[in-house]
C-alpha cells in the first residue's frame, strides 16, 4: 500500500470523510445563460480570504495608538520587506471585496434568488455586506492620517445626528466626545476582533446555507425550461472558480505594485481639513445625498437627520426583501421589485459620479456589466457538448 493510501485509510477510520466526498460528488451547478453570476459570491469570498491573510500579517507590525499608528504604517510601507505589497493588497482587496459583494447582491436581487427557501441566505448575505462596510469604516482610521481622521469625524458625527439615540451612538463609536487615540484603539478592537468574530458567524451560516440549498435557478429560466445538463461542482466549477481567483490575485498584485496605497500626512486634530475631503467610495452616494440637504429643522428634527434615518430604513427594507416580495411567491414574477432595484442602482451610481464630479463610476459599472455579459455569452455559446 502506498503512503498516500495509508494516510487516507488512517483518516477514513477516524474522520467521516466519505460523507464529504459524497457531497462533493453529488453537488452540481445549473448551466444556463446566467450561470456566470454564480461566480460572484466565490469571488467576494476570495477577496475576503485575502483580507484575513494580509490583515493578520499587518498586525505583526501595526501599533494602534495615536503616537505610533502612523509611524508604524510608515515603517511597514518603507522598511519591512514587502510591507508596501501586503498593505497595498489589503487596501485594494478591501475595495474589490466590497465591489464584488455589491455585484453579488445586485445579481441575486435581479435573479430573484432570495425567494423561498433562501430567505435566510439573503438576510445573512446582507448582514455580511453591512459588516464588510463596518470593516471599511473602522479600517479607514487605522493609519491615523489626516484623511482618516476627518472622515471618521464626519462619519461618527453623521451617526450622532440621529434623533434620540444619536448622542449615545456618537459616544459609543468614538469612545468619548471626540475622535482621539481612544477612538483609534476602539476602532482597532472592532476591526481585528469584534467584526471578524461576527463576520465568521454570519459568513459561516451564509456558506452553509448555500451548500444545503444549492444554486438558485432564475424563475424565468425555470419557466422556459432552457436548462442544459448541469455541471459537476467538482472538479468543473471549482476549477473555473480557481482560475478566476488566480486572475484576481494577478490583478491585485498588479494594482498593488503599480498603485501602492498612499499614506498621506499624519493626523493633526488642530489642522484644517483638506479640500474635497471624502469618505470611501461606497459611502459616497450617502455622503453626496447629505450634501444636498439644506440646514434647518422641523418638529425639532434637523433636516440632515431625515435622509440618515431614510438610509437606515432602506437598509432594513433591503434585509427584509424576501419577506416583502409576495409577487415572486404567488405569480412567479415581481416586476415592481425589479423596477425599484433599477432605480436604486441608478441612484447609487449617479450620486457617486456626482460626488466625485467624474463620470468614472459610470464607466466602471458599464465596463463591469460588459465584462460579465461577455463572460456569460462566451462561456455559454460555443460549447455544444453541454446541451441536453
Amino acid at each position, binding site marked *: 500500500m502506498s503512503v498516500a493510501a495509508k494516510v487516507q485509510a488512517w483518516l477514513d477510520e477516524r474522520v467521516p470523510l466519505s460523507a464529504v466526498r459524497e457531497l462533493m460528488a453529488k453537488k452540481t451547478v445549473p448551466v444556463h445563460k446566467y450561470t456566470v453570476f454564480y461566480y460572484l459570491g466565490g469571488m467576494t469570498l476570495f477577496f475576503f480570504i485575502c483580507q484575513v491573510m494580509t490583515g493578520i500579517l499587518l498586525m505583526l507590525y501595526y501599533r494602534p495608538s495615536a503616537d505610533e499608528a502612523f509611524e508604524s504604517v510608515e515603517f511597514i510601507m518603507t522598511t519591512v520587506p*514587502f510591507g508596501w505589497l501586503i498593505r497595498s493588497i489589503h487596501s485594494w482587496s478591501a475595495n474589490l471585496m466590497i465591489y464584488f459583494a455589491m455585484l453579488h447582491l445586485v445579481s441575486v436581487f435581479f435573479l430573484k434568488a432570495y425567494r423561498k427557501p433562501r430567505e435566510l441566505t439573503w438576510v445573512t448575505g446582507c448582514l455580511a455586506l453591512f459588516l464588510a462596510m463596518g470593516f471599511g469604516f473602522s479600517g479607514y482610521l487605522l493609519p491615523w492620517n489626516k484623511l482618516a481622521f476627518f472622515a471618521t469625524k464626519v462619519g461618527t458625527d453623521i451617526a450622532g445626528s440621529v434623533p434620540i439615540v444619536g448622542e449615545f451612538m456618537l459616544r459609543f463609536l468614538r469612545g468619548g466626545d471626540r475622535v482621539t487615540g481612544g477612538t483609534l484603539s476602539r476602532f482597532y478592537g472592532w476591526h481585528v476582533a469584534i467584526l471578524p468574530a461576527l463576520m465568521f458567524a454570519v459568513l459561516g451560516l451564509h456558506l452553509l446555507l448555500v451548500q444545503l440549498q444549492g444554486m438558485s435557478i432564475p424563475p424565468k429560466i425555470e419557466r422556459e425550461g432552457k436548462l442544459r445538463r448541469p455541471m459537476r461542482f467538482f472538479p468543473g466549477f471549482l476549477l473555473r472558480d480557481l482560475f478566476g481567483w488566480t486572475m484576481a490575485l494577478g490583478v491585485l498584485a498588479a494594482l498593488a505594485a503599480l498603485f501602492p496605497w498612499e499614506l498621506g500626512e499624519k493626523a493633526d486634530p488642530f489642522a484644517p481639513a483638506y479640500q474635497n475631503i471624502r469618505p470611501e467610495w461606497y459611502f459616497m452616494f450617502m455622503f453626496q445625498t447629505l450634501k444636498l440637504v439644506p440646514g434647518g429643522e422641523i418638529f425639532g428634527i434637523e433636516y440632515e437627520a431625515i435622509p440618515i434615518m431614510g438610509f437606515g430604513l432602506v437598509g432594513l427594507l433591503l434585509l427584509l426583501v424576501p419577506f416583502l416580495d409576495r409577487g415572486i411567491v404567488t405569480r412567479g414574477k415581481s416586476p415592481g421589485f425589479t423596477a425599484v432595484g433599477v432605480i436604486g442602482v441608478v441612484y447609487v451610481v449617479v450620486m457617486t459620479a456626482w460626488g466625485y464630479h467624474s463620470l468614472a463610476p459610470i464607466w466602471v459599472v458599464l465596463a463591469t456589466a460588459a465584462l460579465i455579459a461577455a463572460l456569460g455569452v462566451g462561456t455559454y455559446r460555443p460549447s455544444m457538448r453541454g446541451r441536453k
Partner: protein
Amino acid sequence: MSASLSTTRRRFVNWFLGTSVGALVLSILYPVLRFISPPKMPEATTNEVDAGPVTDPELAEKGFKIVRFGAEPVILIKAGENDFRAFTATCTHLECIVEYRKDKRLIWCNCHDGQYDLSGRNIAGPPPKPLTPLKVNLVRRGAGQPPSIVISRS
C-alpha cells in the same frame, strides 16, 4: 502510437500545470516569509555614559544601581569607599537583570539564583559565562563638586 502520443501530452500538461501551481505558491510564500522576518534596526552605539556623582544616595544605600548604557542595562556597584565596578546587567543564563546583594557581597540573579562575584565571575547557580566588565572612571567636573562616575566600553 496514439497511446504513447497522448501519454506524452498528458505528461507535458501535468508538468506544465504542476510547475505553474508551484511557481504561484512560491510567489505568494516568498513575500510572506520575507514580511514576517523583521528588518534589522540600526542601533546607536554607546561608548560612554555618565552615571552621576559618587555621592548618589541610591548607590550609598543599596550599594548598586542600574544604568542605561544605550539600549543595554549596566549594573554599577559600590564595592568599597572609592571602589566602583560596572558590568553588563543581563544575566548570561536567561537574560534576567541581576542585582547586587550588599549583605552577601555577590551579584545575584533572582530568576534562577545565579551568583557572580565582584569581578563578574559566575561562581554558583546556572549562569554559564561571566558578566562582561566595563571601565569605570571618576571624572572631576568642577571645583567643590563631587566627581562623576563615567562608565565606558573597555
